[in-house]
Every structure is written in structure tokens, then in C-alpha cells.
């Protein structure tokens, strides 16, 4: 890539569509030049339920982002989420081919290929393969190339999803004339921004709690160990409030944002808050303790599900850094307390990424889009450099008349 290339990171969430436009300069650096956020329609729990509505809002967001950047997107990175995503661990094993027993790149490649060979049930499709490290004759090594041994084993965390749901996401982007260059699971995208390398090496659980789903990724020794999606998010809390307090969803969302907190505070027992707050018809007092209990129940349930899915993986020994929460619902007051209480490890809200200067992007809601851009670029950087080197090679070949 000798010339600039414009890429768009597109996250189609349950409550909003976020688009970041970035230019890749020289295949090496990434500059964010445009952003836009639009209300999402036609998505439930991370899955598309109305292609037309999703297309309308996504295309509007893309057009707005292009307008702010003053450039047209060449290709897109897409974040994907939803309960249809599942993962499993698998490993590939191969014997060292050289007579001297020195591991070569070819041995590693064969081991990688073997690790990706497992067939999936009909209608399932691989989304992501995450390498979890190597073992040489049973001992864990970071890079076995050049070392002596007989058997190389590589571990992988494979994430797969429903083919039709994935295709729907791709076709939404195709509908505006863009090709999806890279698909990144939302959990990995968020985690790449929320946790740094040291935290990943020590062991950390990153949970991105959005409106429709909570995506989590567990890191240990610098690699992904587990990912998962819990189909519970901020919208469920809103829905619970609407049903429990007999109010419409719009007011419930307002009450959640104004008064919601994740813990039950005994001091709120006698306290009441007004539903609307302007004493108009329909405005009425609501016991604050009721709000607390409803919110706490749902948040507690969310972390309980995460704990059940991860089992013994989450404990202070495996995850010494603890839990890092991100996503829009992570703004809920005292949510870290509940996470810490349920999961039994320290919890905190993710720090803003230091490499982003725009204050509008330094919020938990944008972590997936930022991570998508970062991960997508990291994944594709090899091919960009390859394109660049090919161009240089062709130029040199032309000069020397090859």
C-alpha cells in the first residue's frame, strides 16, 4: 500500500450503529478521520431481525461518517456479536520434520493447519481462530521455531457462528457497495482496547455489556482462553423496569439512566423518585428501592451466567487482574461491586484508550468500534504490507527490466 486506503469500522449494535472512518497511511499507521453514530433499528440481542431497517440506519451512519471524513470508504471491518456465536478449544499436533529435530516454520504451519481442521455442523461457519500458544514436547513455549523437539502442538480457540446470520450482516454492508475485508468478534474487539498487554499476560476477563448482549473474553498468558456471548444487556434492565414498575419502555429507560444503580442501597428504602419529574398527567412516585432491586437482580443474573459459563476459569489465581467492564451498561453505578461480588475477582471500569484523542470516542460505548479498527488493522496489516512490497517489487522489476 503505497497510497492511503480508507477503511470503515462498522459496529451494528442493538441500540446504536457506530462507524469510524480511518485512513491507513503507507500500510503502517492508522488515523481516525471520521465518526458517526446512529440509532439502531431492526436488531435484537445482536442479531438482525429486519434487514431493511438495519440497512437504512447502517447506511445512513456510513454516509454520515463519510461526510464527516470527506472521503469514501474503500472497504469495511465489521464487528459481529449475538448469541449464535459459540467457541471451542482445539489443538493441532505435528511431528518435527527435520532430522536434526529443529522446529521450522513449516512445522508450525502444519500444526496450525491441523488445529483448524475440525468440521462444523451444517449451517455453522468459522468466524475467528485465536492461537493460544505452543507446546513443544509437552512444555509450553512462546515461539518454538529453532528449538529442538519431536512434537509441536498449537492450541486454538475457535469461534463459529450461524452462517445465515453472518451472511445477513455482510449483506447489509454489501448493500451500500462495500466489501467486508475483516470480521472481528465484538468480545475480542472490546477486549483489545479495554485491557493492555500486561493485563492480558497476567490474566483478565473483559466484559462488554451492551444494550442487547454482554460479550466477554478471558485472557491468560497473553492469549485468549475463552470468549462468549450472554444475551443480556442494558435493554433487559430497561424491560424489567418497564414490566416491574408498569411503565412504558421510554420512561423505564429514563428511570434507569437517572436513578438506576446495580446495588440495593438500604438507605433508599424510604426514598421515592418521580417517574417523569414534571408533575404532568402520568407522573407518579416510584420507590427507589424497587428500582434498585430490579436492576440489581438483572445485573447479578448477568454475572452469574458469565460465572457459570466460565466455571472454575474465573478465580483470583487465574484472573489476578480481575474483571474489566466496558460497553454502555458499564456506566451503571456500582456495577463493579456486583461483578466483584459475583465473580469473586476485582472489577473495574475500562480506562479510555490513550491512543485516541477525540473525547467523543473515549467512552465505553465506543470501545468495540475502536477495538474493531485496531484488531482489523492488525489482522490485515500483513496483507497491506505485502501489497506495498509487491508494488515496490514491481517498480524495481520494471527498473531493472526483469
Amino acid at each position: 500500500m503505497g497510497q492511503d486506503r480508507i477503511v470503515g469500522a462498522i459496529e451494528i449494535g442493538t441500540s446504536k450503529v457506530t462507524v469510524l472512518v480511518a485512513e491507513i497511511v503507507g500500510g503502517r499507521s492508522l488515523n481516525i478521520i471520521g465518526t458517526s453514530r446512529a440509532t439502531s433499528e431492526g436488531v435484537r440481542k445482536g442479531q438482525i431481525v429486519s434487514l431493511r431497517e438495519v440497512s437504512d440506519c447502517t447506511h445512513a451512519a456510513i454516509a454520515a461518517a463519510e461526510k464527516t471524513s470527506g472521503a469514501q470508504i474503500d472497504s469495511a471491518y465489521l464487528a459481529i456479536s449475538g448469541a449464535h456465536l459459540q467457541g471451542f478449544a482445539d489443538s493441532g499436533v505435528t511431528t518435527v520434520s527435520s532430522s536434526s529435530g529443529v522446529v521450522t516454520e513449516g512445522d508450525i504451519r502444519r500444526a496450525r493447519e491441523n488445529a483448524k481442521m475440525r468440521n462444523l455442523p451444517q449451517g455453522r461457519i468459522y468466524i475467528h481462530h485465536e492461537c493460544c500458544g505452543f507446546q513443544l514436547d509437552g512444555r509450553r513455549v512462546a515461539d518454538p521455531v529453532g528449538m529442538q523437539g519431536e512434537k509441536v502442538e498449537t492450541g486454538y480457540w475457535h469461534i463459529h457462528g450461524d452462517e445465515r446470520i453472518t451472511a445477513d450482516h455482510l449483506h447489509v454492508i454489501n448493500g451500500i457497495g462495500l466489501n467486508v475485508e475483516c470480521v472481528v468478534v465484538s468480545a475480542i474487539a472490546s477486549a483489545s482496547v479495554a485491557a493492555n498487554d500486561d493485563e492480558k499476560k497476567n490474566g483478565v476477563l473483559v466484559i462488554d455489556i451492551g444494550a442487547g448482549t454482554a460479550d466477554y473474553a478471558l485472557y491468560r498468558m497473553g492469549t485468549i482462553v475463552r470468549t462468549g456471548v450472554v444475551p443480556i444487556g442494558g435493554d433487559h434492565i430497561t424491560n424489567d423496569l418497564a414490566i416491574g414498575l408498569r411503565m412504558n419502555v421510554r420512561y423505564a429507560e429514563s428511570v434507569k439512566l437517572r436513578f438506576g444503580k446495580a446495588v440495593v442501597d438500604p438507605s433508599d428504602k424510604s426514598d421515592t423518585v418521580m417517574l417523569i419529574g414534571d408533575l404532568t398527567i402520568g407522573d407518579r412516585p416510584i420507590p427507589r428501592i424497587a428500582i434498585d432491586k430490579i436492576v440489581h437482580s438483572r445485573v447479578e443474573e448477568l454475572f452469574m451466567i458469565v460465572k457459570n459459563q466460565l466455571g472454575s476459569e474465573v478465580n483470583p489465581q487465574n484472573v489476578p487482574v480481575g474483571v474489566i467492564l466496558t460497553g454502555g451498561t458499564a456506566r451503571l453505578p456500582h456495577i463493579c461491586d456486583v461483578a466483584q461480588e459475583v465473580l469473586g475477582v476485582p472489577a473495574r471500569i475500562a480506562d479510555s484508550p490513550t491512543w485516541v484523542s477525540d473525547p467523543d470516542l473515549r467512552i465505553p460505548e465506543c470501545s468495540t468500534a475502536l477495538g474493531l479498527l485496531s484488531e482489523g488493522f492488525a489482522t490485515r496489516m500483513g496483507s497491506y504490507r505485502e501489497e506495498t512490497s509487491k508494488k515496490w517489487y514491481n517498480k524495481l522489476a520494471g527498473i531493472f527490466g526483469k
Partner: protein
Amino acid sequence: MPEETKDPAESRQTRREWSDIQQDDTRRSTTEVARRRKWSRIGRIVSLCLLALVICGALIFAYVSASRNDAALEPSAFLEKVTFRTDGVLNDRWLARALDIREGMAMNAIDIASVRRKLEASGQIRTAAVTLRLPRELVIEVRERMPILRAQAEVGQGKVRTLLISSDGTIFEGSDYPVNSIRALPYVDGVVFRRRGEGYEPVQNIGPIADMLSTTRTNWPKLYADWQVVSLKRYRGLEQGSIVEVKSKTLGRLQFTPDNVDNQLRRLFGIITNGATRDPRKVVGVNLTIPGQAIVEYSATEKSGAQPAPQAKPATPKPASSKPQATR
């Protein structure tokens, strides 16, 4: 955890990656925003193509122009062909005599403005268009003056030269006219030739004379053929009392006013055909200057040789069939 290496060819047939999903970014745009974006993109591409075409065209044009200029300016560019077109009688030989232009001379040595001035100074040429058609051709297109009168002028050392007068009064020495066509022209009398530069000052107010001669030649060719000299001694344009005298071979001195010539010629023709020629005496003059009348002047002798004194009598114009009234 598998312990043995699997056959990749076998399992690739059933495992699929997300990138195996067929993506078609050229499919029909699904939303209004997508359609606008698509047309915007097409418009941008078309604009860029047009811009590229314009730039290429401009570059090609500039290159061709520069090549032509180079060809014109380079010393190896010589005149290979001179094309001469005229609506008159001049020809290439005259051109070669009149201009110092020859094939093989350098193109950049030809001053087309000077050539044009030289051509138009000859008098015979009314307008000239001179074009350098690069790289190696000179094109000259001229429109010539047509003479209506001729004159004999003394040019010194007793030499006499025939000069021609065109319908706009220009006096010039004609070239390449057929002898018969020059001989058919009447002489002019009563004109003073004044030199101006290499040529002569034009004759003023000759327009009515040109009209008169043209009308006579066209409508009364036999009368015209009989005219020998047109005298402008008493001619003062279209002013009152202006008279044109014509010396005719058979009718002697004819007097016209310069206006309404056709009517005067019709009267003259009537006199000739119906009266005067039947008279035994010889006609020596006809005065047509009095409106509606013609004064026929006879010689004193009859045509056969008798010599009565010439008398003049006003004659009332009659239709062509009526007899002329003449008195002795």
C-alpha cells in the same frame, strides 16, 4: 485433542470460513442512501474520466501544435507548393511574375501580410487571402476586378499603354485578359489620370456609368457593341445637368443623362428601329437628355452621299411600333 495429522484435502471440503460467504458489493443498492452513494461514486468516476480525457486532449493538442510550430520554424521546412485560386483571368504565371515567391524557399521567410499588400496593390485584384498551410504549402485566393472601360495613356518617352477602369473607378493595367474582351470595351474620354504611388487615383462617381454600361451590355448588346468612346467631359455624377456622351459607330454622338438610362436606351432603340434608320439621311447624333423626348440630328447629306445641312428636331417618343417624327 487429535494426536495425528489429518488429511487437509478431505476436511477442507466441509469446513467453511466467514470469508467463504459470497460477497457481492455490486449487487443492487438496498437503500436510498446506498443508491445516492452509488450514483455519487459513478459521477465521480465519470468526472475523473472526463477530466483525464480533457487533460489528454489538451496534452495531445499542445504536442501537435508544438510539433507544427517546430516544423514551421525548423530550417528544413521549405515551400513545396503554391496554390492559386481566382475568380478572374489571372494565372500561376502572372503570380510568379508578380511575387517573389518560389518553391523551395524557407516557409518562415514568407511574410503573408506583405504578399497580400503586394497583390492588392496591383489594382486588378480586389481582395486577396493568403494562407500558410503548414508545413509546406502557401494558398492564395483572390477576387479580381472586372474592367468596364479602357483608356490609352502616355507613360513617357512616347510610349502609350492601355489602362483599364473597373466599376469602382480603379485604374489598373490589366493582365491576361483575352484580347477580344478588351477590344469590346469602349474607350473613356474626359478623364484625367493622376499618379498615386505606383498606380493611379481612382475615377470618382463612376458608379452610374458602370450601371449604364452594364445595363446596355445586358439589355441592348447591339447598341453596346456600337459604342466606341464614352466621354465624361460633361459628367458630374448624378447632379442636375450631368451628361454622358457616347460616340457610337453608326449613330454618332449620343447624349444621356446618367439616371434612368434604361428608359433613354429604350427611346433610342425605338428611334433606330422605327424612324431614324428609314430616313435617307445619316444620323449623326441623338440627344436623350430631355425627359420624354429625343433629338435626332441628321447629317446634311443623305446616306447615299447628298449633303443637306444637318437639322435638329425634337421628336416625341412613340411606342416601338409607331413611326418617328422627324423634320427636314
